[in-house]
């Protein structure tokens, strides 16, 4: 899987490894989700972009809060 544009150029500073698309687990308001996100296979560091955090993630939070 290719990295989305906003993840280009980021590497894990802990191990120097490239990021690759991986399944990342999230939890909110008793709900659990999995999203494909750039992450470091070795260290488990995840990249949540500004666009994702203030866009789709914020929208999903609102919907879950109303449940």
């Amino acid at each position, binding site marked *: 899987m290719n990295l989305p544009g906003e993840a280009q150029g*980021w590497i894990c500073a*802990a191990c120097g490894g490239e990021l690759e698309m991986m*399944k990342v687990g*999230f939890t*909110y308001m008793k709900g659990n989700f999995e999203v494909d996100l750039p992450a470091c296979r070795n260290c488990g560091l995840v*990249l*949540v972009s500004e666009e994702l955090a203030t866009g789709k993630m914020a929208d999903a939070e609102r919907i879950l809060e*109303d449940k």
Partner: protein
Amino acid sequence: MKQDNLREWEQKCIQEEPPECTAACPIHIDARLFVKEMGRGDHEAAFKVLAKTMPFPGILGRICDHPCELKCKRGEVEAPIAIGLLERNCVERATGKVRVQLLPRRGQTIAILGGGLAGLTAAWDLLRKGFGVTIFERSHELGGSLREFPGNTLPQEIIDEELAVLDTLKADCRLGQALDATVFEDICREFDAVFIDREAVAGCNLPLKLDDAGEITIDAASGATDREGVYAGGGTRCIGAYSPINETIQGRKGSLSIERFIQKANMGAGRENDGPFQTRLFTSIAGIDPIPRVQPKDAEAGFSNEEALAEAGRCIQCECMECVKVCLYLERYQAYPKKYARQIFNNEQVIYGAAHTKNQFVNSCSTCGLCETVCPNAFNMGDLCLQARRAMNEQKFMPLSFHEFALTDMAHSNGEQFAFSHHQPGTEGSAWLYFPSCQLCATSPGEVISSYRFLQERLTGGVGVMLGCCGAPAYWAGRDDLFRETMDALRTQWEQLGSPRVITACSTCLSLFREQIPGMEAVSLWRVLEETGLPVDACAATGTTVAVADPCITRHDPETQGSVRRIAGAIGMTIEELPLSGDKPECCGYGGLMYNANPKLAKDVIDRRASTKTADPGKYYHTTVSGHDYLAYCAMCRDKLAGAGKRVSHLIELIFPTVAGGDPAARGWISWSQRRTNRARVKQELLRELGGKGEDIVEPYANILLEMTPEVSRRIDERRILEGDVRTVIDHAERSGQRLRNSASGQYRACLQSGNVTFWVDYTPADNRFQVHNAYCHRMKIVGVKK
């Protein structure tokens, strides 16, 4: 919310009440909708509106004596809408036929004595209700007085066409019938009920009770005569004032009474609004420009289509919407309080698993109370929303995110970094207690300290001081538990200080103290300064004009509002009154925690209050602004207006200037982080004055020095990310090494979950400090990579 509570709220909002024209119309034609359709040039749609309520619209539409026009609100501006002429224009041109929806046939048969308009209306109504109808008419044609109108107003063939519907409905029309007492007795025996059109039975000597004028006596409400099952009406001609619409309503009343008589139903129930009534709808005519009533060029022919269009265009489409006109929140959700009450009720009642889709709506109201002031019925949306928020907390479906930041800020104010109370240095008792408020200390720490020193000089008996938050955020969040706890703690401290008179510089604190703490005498700083006089170094603002931005909480506090204006006058200012001031101030978007639960709405609210943007066409809400500087006396009003780019100063900045000859109105916005630092500064300063060492309370990670551009600083503040949050993330990233690096820019990106929020920071280490490029956050928790 209980059902009956919902009813009470709904009943208060009058937006759905009928307009004056409909209420004045004896048969309640929806004249507002009719005129609206005519204004669109849609004769067919307009005709349908008439036909829904009007029997024989082709007849009545030509001759109605339109009592609606007497009540038309346009009449209060210049002249009422010519509804009568519009009806004539409509029915003369519409080609649509009346579509009759019949109810199932019933076994009973009704006799109608007399085929005037009253009798014909009763026949029409009863036929539609499924009764068998027989009309007895002495003459050789139906219509009675209708036949006497001039042919160019009501042609004979139109009458015949319209009455043909009676044949279609299989009415038995017996023309040329003798009507006398004997025939009448036979009819009464044969039929289940009788309606008498009084116009048609003059001189028949029917055995019924008569009045002094020789008319059959009827009960005004039901049309009942003195004989059971016999109803009567009409006959306005006999009293010399033929009124087609009154003939119609009397026929209609009679038919309704007959239906109830046959069903043995309650005769009077639910009939309060039969016939003309006084509507509860309020319609403002303020700002409506006079437009002369259109006079038809050819009076005999009535309106041309162009004339009808122009005349219908004068209609103001009566409605209330007084609250929506002054509130962006109420407008944004595209309805009005009656509908909102129902939505809030439904939001509470949702069955398990469904979404509470109105959560954000309930929590977006500033609770400022302006709606109550402008509402003819005192509907207070804020009270409704606060009630709903308490229920949301009790039923445990209040989203944390709506209030968490505000409640955390409140906890900061009531925590060790700020909360504090003490007698005046060097004294053992307090006649007075200064409670400057958490938000004023956050925005104007220097001025607060100066004002405290001044009060100590001018007042006798000792002026103690108390720092803390009054609990307003908890009140607004519907967190009564937390609010009570806060109030109780404040009251205890106040009592320990000897229950002194409280002076506060915040109108919200003042209002809550007066409402919530019995026995506490609380007064505004501004009122006290009127008594003590102003300091000599108060700003000399001679020649400047300001618009006073009253905080919404002072709506019912003219004393404070007056003090502020007198002080502003005393330092030389000329005051311009905003249209929404005094008992009608708007909220800045902080009240009710709107900014917390709905930041976008709060931003729109303050942007509109700060700019001279003209009203959007087609929108109700248009704000009132002034080109002059604003004078605020609420810290949040100052900060919000300044944040939106408006030149605004706080009164305390003018009375206790920190820089001689400065321009406080140019100070601009301040961040949430700075607010906390400022609060802590006030406490440290007071501790020093009490002889303490005044050691700074060290913030965690204070050794991590940050640098950021004003744009970054503003952006992260709008996201309610504190500098402390940024420091925590950087500290963790630098110590753990858990960070991402951008190979092109060399920037680091790191995140850390703190409480319920995960913060992300883009930064670059630079010497002994950190350049911050961006920060953002989310509330979803990262569990981790799935292996």
